[in-house]
């Protein structure tokens, strides 16, 4: 009734959002490509891309970014799935567990990076605890700039701590959509807990897993404050390079090239996940 009488109303309600997103989302996006494909005098050129690809830090930043994503995401999914199963198990105080596990959702990359720096630094908490337990007899240098393996490990820990919450919440929302009958049917057939997870829960969770994977990967490509807070300039990722080229070298063109490259990787990974995990929606409705 309302819809027919006020045919223009929905469009009027959408207009402010559309205008704002056009001005502050679409235009900058186009402009980013303009910046990346122009030189300082405004002529079209591939100069910035050449500078980026031949920069000594580029290869390292790319490898580190990809390595971090490949390690972090499976770790996060394992922890998030465990948390989601706990929340969904209807323990006493289910809301309490959900709250605790969701706390890192409101903590920034930067704060998480510093918190884990306090843990991993040479005179830090982890060394205190390991020495106290007699596992180490002197402090171990986790944040050793010579040893990329350990640096990556510390970033993985910090990111697994901070950014798992969002996956957990998407998975819990997905779990609640699984009809109880299915799990009860599995019980009747004597399925063990792990069989239920593998044969019933994970296949049913596929759409949620897909969304969480896409979202987390896109966000992981942008992570840089956590790397900076933990390793200083000891390790670099693509987003750090975009920041460095803009802030330290005052070169928005190369910075935009880095940003464009990150966008390209984000889009590619999204397509990859859509292709790897096709969701047949009708199956679930």
């Amino acid at each position, binding site marked *: 009734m309302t819809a027919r009488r006020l045919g223009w109303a929905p469009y009027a309600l959408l207009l402010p959002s559309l205008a704002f997103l056009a001005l502050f989302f679409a235009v900058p996006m186009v402009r980013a490509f303009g910046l990346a494909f122009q030189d300082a005098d405004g002529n079209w050129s591939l100069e910035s891309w050449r500078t980026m690809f031949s920069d000594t830090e580029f290869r390292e930043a790319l490898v580190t970014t990809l390595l971090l994503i490949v390690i972090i995401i499976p770790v996060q999914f394992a922890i998030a799935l465990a948390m989601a199963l706990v929340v969904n198990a209807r323990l006493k105080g289910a809301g309490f567990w*959900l709250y605790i596990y969701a706390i890192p959702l409101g903590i920034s990359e*930067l*704060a998480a990076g510093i918190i884990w720096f306090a843990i991993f630094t040479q005179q830090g908490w982890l060394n205190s605890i390991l020495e106290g337990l007699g596992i180490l007899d002197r402090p171990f240098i986790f944040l050793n700039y010579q040893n990329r393996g350990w640096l990556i490990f510390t970033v993985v820990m910090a990111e697994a701590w901070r950014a798992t919450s969002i996956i957990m919440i998407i998975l819990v929302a997905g779990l609640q959509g699984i009809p109880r009958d299915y799990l009860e049917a599995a019980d009747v057939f004597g399925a063990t807990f792990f069989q239920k997870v593998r044969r019933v829960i994970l296949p049913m969770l596929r759409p949620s897993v897909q969304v969480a994977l896409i979202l987390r990967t896109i966000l992981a490509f942008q992570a840089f404050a956590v790397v900076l807070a933990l390793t200083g300039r000891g390790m670099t990722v693509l987003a750090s390079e975009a*920041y460095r080229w803009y802030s330290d070298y005052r070169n928005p063109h190369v910075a935009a090239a880095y940003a464009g490259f990150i966008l390209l990787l984000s889009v590619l990974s999204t397509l990859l996940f859509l292709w790897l995990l096709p969701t047949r929606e009708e199956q679930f409705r």
Partner: protein
Amino acid sequence: MTANVAAPSSERRRRARRRLLGRVLLYLGAALLALWVLAPIYIITVTAFSPRSVVYDYPKHLIPREVSAETMDFFVNSTGVLPSLWRSVQVALVTLALSTLIGAPAGYALARFAFRGRDTFRLAILSTRAFPIVILSIPLAVTFIEWGIYDTIWSVALMHTALALPFTVLITSSIFVSVPRDLEEAALTLGCTPISAFVRVVLPLALPGLAAASIFTFVLSWNEVFAAVILTLRERTLPALILAAITESPAPFRFAAAWFMAAPSLIFIFLIRRYLLGMWGRVSR
């Protein structure tokens, strides 16, 4: 699995014992996961509230020997911290106001009207999430320099609004969907205009959800650092100030800063805990 209807009592007892063991393991797992989330928060709290000399002490003590506000005091009174803190609050409030004013009407339109282009708009909003902040910040910095609002709270707030808006639209739409349509139509039948029906019936029912969405937007802005550090130079927000000086600032400063940035999350997530699943469940579908 035994097909006997009357299982021997020893079998039944064994199964009961197994179920109890499963329960115990489940609570143990839940507690371990909670420890994983809470331990770093505990550690940074103890560190931030130790005297400055103790921050450098080694080994650390899990139970603090001395609680003091000295480190916190040092942080808060460091040059630039209080003004940037105030700026962060202003930016977050402007972001919250702008994205609600602009986004909530679109959310309402998506929830209540069937109109041509509805699915296209929804898809366009969803797809904005595939674009990293990195790609928006650099061209926007150039634009804001031209507009003369670079290095002000407005540039950061506009950028944050562009980031938050898609979420606001989707979240508010899911909140308005959950307000029964019948009530609104009853109000219309009883002589309300569409606007007064919205203000008197829909708004009061949607208010808690809208408040939760606002808190979420506030947190997003409060935590955001990449755009903030690119779009400011002197007028830093708190995370931007800390990030820009991260390699030079003393450890106690950083630890107190991390606590200051992370601690509000305990309250924010507590306030919106009931809405988390609804927000993310719907957003991810």
